[in-house]
């Protein structure tokens, strides 16, 4: 899990980033993350989608839109919970 912060340095969420995404951030690249409710879970979780941008600033990973990151983190928690139950 990688801790993501807002522009003020406040930690917003811990999320899973892939090796490729971490490598891009390490190379000072901005990455766009697109999220959505998985097809098979829409009837349980509703339909959500959005995107946010991450970049590295000093030793922190910064998000450009903290609300969307929170929404994504909430959605991921809900996905995990539903998949473990069903």
């Amino acid at each position: 899990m990688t801790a993501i912060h807002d522009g003020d340095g406040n930690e917003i969420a811990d999320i899973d980033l892939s090796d490729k995404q971490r490598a891009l951030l390490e190379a000072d690249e901005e990455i766009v993350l697109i999220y959505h409710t998985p097809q098979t879970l829409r009837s349980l979780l509703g339909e959500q989608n959005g995107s946010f941008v991450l970049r590295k600033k000093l030793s922190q990973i910064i998000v450009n839109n903290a609300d969307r990151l929170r929404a994504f983190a909430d959605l991921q928690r809900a996905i995990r919970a539903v998949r473990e139950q069903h």
Partner: protein
Amino acid sequence: MPAQKIPIEFGEWRPDIALLDTKFASEVENVFAGVNSYLPCPSLLRFATTALPNPVCGLYAARTLSGGWKIYGGTRTKLYVWGLAGWTDISRTVGGAYNVAEGDLWSFEQSGTKLVAVNSNDDPQVVDIDSGLNFAALAGSPPKAGNVKQIGDFLFLSALANSPPTWTNRMIIWSSINDITGWTIGLNLCDMQEFPDNGPVQGIAGAENGYVVQDRGIRTIQFLPGDTTFIFNFNRVLHDRGSISKYGFTAIGDVLYFVSEDGFYAISGQQVMPIGADKVNDWWLAHSDIDRRNVVQAIAGVNKPRMVWAFHLTSASHVYDQEIIYDWSNQRWARATVPAQVWALLATPGLDLDTDGPEPGDPLLDSTAHALDSFAYVGGRPLIGAIDEDGYLCALNGPNMPATMETSEVHLAPGQRAFVSDVYPLDDTVDGPGSVAAGTRERLQDPVVFNTPAPLEITGSAAAYSSARLHRFRRSIPQGAVWTHAQGVLVETQQDGSVA
């Protein structure tokens, strides 16, 4: 009736239909089917001097950034890469020996510079084709899978190991777009799909548009660019038939070929073509080990328009020992008896400039055989390869296999017995011309009895000297003989008892 010469073509091999007085061949072996002839089938020729430990259950050729090729092999416990010095163990260094289930095969797929290898008992493995030393677990914690396939910008895992409720074999999962280390469902288009009916998913086939192959159904996969809600559209095109085998399907272009419970099929988009019906389906069902039809292996030839299915002939077969071959350019079938542990598409190794080695086509550097920039030095010519019974890497480009072709059964003198004196094979066999045997019987209710095979004489004919109401002719061409086409036989015959 004076003696006459009657040409009998071998014709198309269609063992499933009644063959009396038809233009179809009743039997062929170790040949390819041409438009109006049969062509020789080469044998497996070893091009490695060291063997993999048995049993071998994986073989794949991957392409390097520089355009070269690397050949990978797998056993039930290890993964290897092949080089001129032999096989090198590049198994994972963490996690212990692999545990491929008995009878299962590794599934390999190249994705960019990475090679992914999966089997349903181990975590998916990955190695960097250009610089990687050993395989290691694929990042992102993807599920265990029996099949891996790249469709467009996504890596698909299917034939998932059952671990409900999280994963079942009715689910598939695809990676994040252009990121085989991204397996977080709901992120960067990574998602999963579950198919409630049509049984377990055997695998995914295709390239840009794909197919979900289940054991009782086929669905098409279509990427929906710009649609982050659905990502892929799945559309069922066949709901009662699917692939009986985990490895018995592959796509050439947009055409999916697969072997079902009742034989061989092709699907192009929505159109289903029963390519084996009234041709070879019944023969295959009668000549394959029913207990191992779930591991029939499909290979798509890339240098010829052919599909090959390797299977086990009987319960006593310890390796794949029979291949049924479909030529999709002329819709004709043939078969071959080439034993191998596993088959794959490979590529010819390149020739280095400074050798005078024993490789075919590798002349001394100072000869004038090839210019230094000749294409002949560049490897990569596609060929079908295999690991033979003894564990050696081979290519299907050895001396020709011993070939057999048999005509349909004919009444040469309808209502009468016919005497056959000579049989003149219509083929161009150069070395070891082989023989012809006449198969005869008086009534359809009698068994066919073949005469002792008669060798070809200096005249190019074989002395058959047979008399019967019903005749068929079996042409045998010996191992290693050089030939290009075999069309049939020319039979010299007359009504028996008459004077020529």
